[in-house]
């Protein structure tokens, strides 16, 4: 049901991202690769925070679980990277359901604090080298590149395109989500939980569904993140990172795909552009965040509802 105008915009967006690495320095390809990965994580955070309206400030847990699954299975158990991918998706799903099930009924602010707690426990576990497999505070180095058949994703550009592919896949999933019964159910229960229950929506099931789906996508993003640096470390998945993903969604525009992409660009790429200003850039950045929230409380690019097929309004 995507209209031609949107299809055109997305076409241009991907065309630009496809030719971009051929004009960038190695340093900037790296920044843009991380941008693509963070976009995927932010879009997954948006499923829980924007669409289902649950204050999850521990999303880095699922991103980190995916990243560490790949690194540990590869480095400690010698699995090829391809084989680690299903685990890096399924493990975050299981973790998200186990973590969310007992707290899902909590109101926004209580859920927020609980998820922060989980995130802190998670990074502490990684730092303390639980089961002797997480590599402690330094993490794990020297993860092998991804090999599919005879293709090896070792070069910087190949990983960039891998990340671009994952972003494309995520956008396809989210497009399918927002035009389906489960996706609409998330908006309904977010806007009025009681009214949703009274028309037959199992709000508990769909809240867990939102967590599981978003954890799966974040886990997959984690795999690419590990591949980009051939390494993982606890600092990349701490509570502050969760705050970043949370803020990206709110600043960009909850439930809005272009909003979340713009939010990621604004919150991650823009600070990189002003690197020469060192710490001063964060002052400007912080002020900009405040102003956006005051002037555009629904984000830079707010969501537009009314995704309905044309044939229902025609005679």
């Amino acid at each position, binding site marked *: 049901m995507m209209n031609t105008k949107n299809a055109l915009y997305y076409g241009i967006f991907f065309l630009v991202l496809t030719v971009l690495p051929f004009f960038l320095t190695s340093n900037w390809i790296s920044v843009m690769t991380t941008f693509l990965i963070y976009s995927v994580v932010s879009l997954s955070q948006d499923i829980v925070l924007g669409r289902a309206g649950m204050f999850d400030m521990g999303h880095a847990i699922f991103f980190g679980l995916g990243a560490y699954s790949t690194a540990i299975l590869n480095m400690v158990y010698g699995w090829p990277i391809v084989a680690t991918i299903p685990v890096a998706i399924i493990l975050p799903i299981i973790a998200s359901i186990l973590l969310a099930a007992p707290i899902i009924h909590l109101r926004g602010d209580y859920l927020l604090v609980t998820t922060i707690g989980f995130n802190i426990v998670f990074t502490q576990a990684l730092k303390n080298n639980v089961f002797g497999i997480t590599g402690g505070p330094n993490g794990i180095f020297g993860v092998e590149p991804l090999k599919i058949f005879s293709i090896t994703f070792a070069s910087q550009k190949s990983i960039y395109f891998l990340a671009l592919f994952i972003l494309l896949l995520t956008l396809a*999933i989210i497009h*399918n*989500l927002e*035009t*389906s*019964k*489960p*996706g*609409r*159910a998330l*908006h*309904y229960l977010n*806007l*009025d939980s*009681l*009214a*949703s*229950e*009274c*028309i*037959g*929506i*199992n*709000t508990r099931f769909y809240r867990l*569904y939102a967590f599981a*789906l978003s954890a799966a996508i974040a886990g997959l993003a984690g795999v690419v993140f590990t591949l980009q640096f051939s390494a993982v470390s606890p600092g990349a998945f701490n509570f502050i990172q969760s705050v970043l993903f949370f803020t990206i969604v709110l600043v960009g525009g909850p439930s809005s795909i272009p909003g979340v992409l713009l939010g990621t660009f604004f919150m991650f790429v823009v600070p990189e552009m002003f690197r020469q200003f060192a710490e001063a850039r964060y002052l400007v950045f912080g002020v900009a965040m405040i102003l956006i929230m005051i002037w555009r409380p629904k984000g830079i690019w707010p969501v537009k*509802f*009314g*995704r*309905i*097929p044309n*044939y*229902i*309004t025609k005679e």
Partner: protein
Amino acid sequence: MALLELDNVTKIFGGLVAVDSLSISIEKGMIYGIIGPNGAGKTTVFNCITGVYKPEKGKIIFKGKDITGLSPHKIANMGITRTFQTIRLFGEMSVAENIMSGRHSKSRQKWWHGIIHTPFYYKDEKENWLKVREYMELFGLTHLARMTAGSQPYGIQRKIEMARALATEPELLILDEPAAGLNDKERLELLETIRKIRGMGITILLIEHNMDLVMNITEYISVLNFGKKIAEGKPEEIQNNPVVIEAYLGKEDEDEF
């Protein structure tokens, strides 16, 4: 067998008995009214039936099945849908999306259709949107399909909420003060709509303060006061029942002073 039966239902909040051993029986196809002064416990009864509250005592039987204490979505899926006294729409979403929410339980899409669209998805999605179109036409909302529900005038919002409830294809439709805030013209329209809904074979249970409307449309009435049923019967019987008049207006001899 009655479609819905309440058997000695009691709901207590703290020390307050909001509903006191209430028994009512609603036959299939009828328009049943519950009336009573403010605070008589009418909405609490609705909340007990729809699973929002769990009654302390008593049983609620729907189509021969005990539904007491089931969660609201299960009760809704069994065929009981309600509207709210204070309208509860998904305000930021479009009118059509609001009505589509009523199709949730009838749509047979599974969780994976939120990730992958199969041929079945397209078929199911189209079927349900066409149903939405039907309900929009029924309520004359088609031209507002893309508009934000929350920015519509009050009367229209009431219609949207009723269309949403109907879209679930309920067997029992519960209306909590459907005429509240409507002008005379809208009230007449509402009467017509309620009759139309009954014509579809849907049983209706309603709470209403507007006596004209209640007396005009219901076939059977229960009167509540302080959580207790003080009278029941046909509208004309209720109108002349001294106990009911007393509950509404106070004792006649008091008025003379």
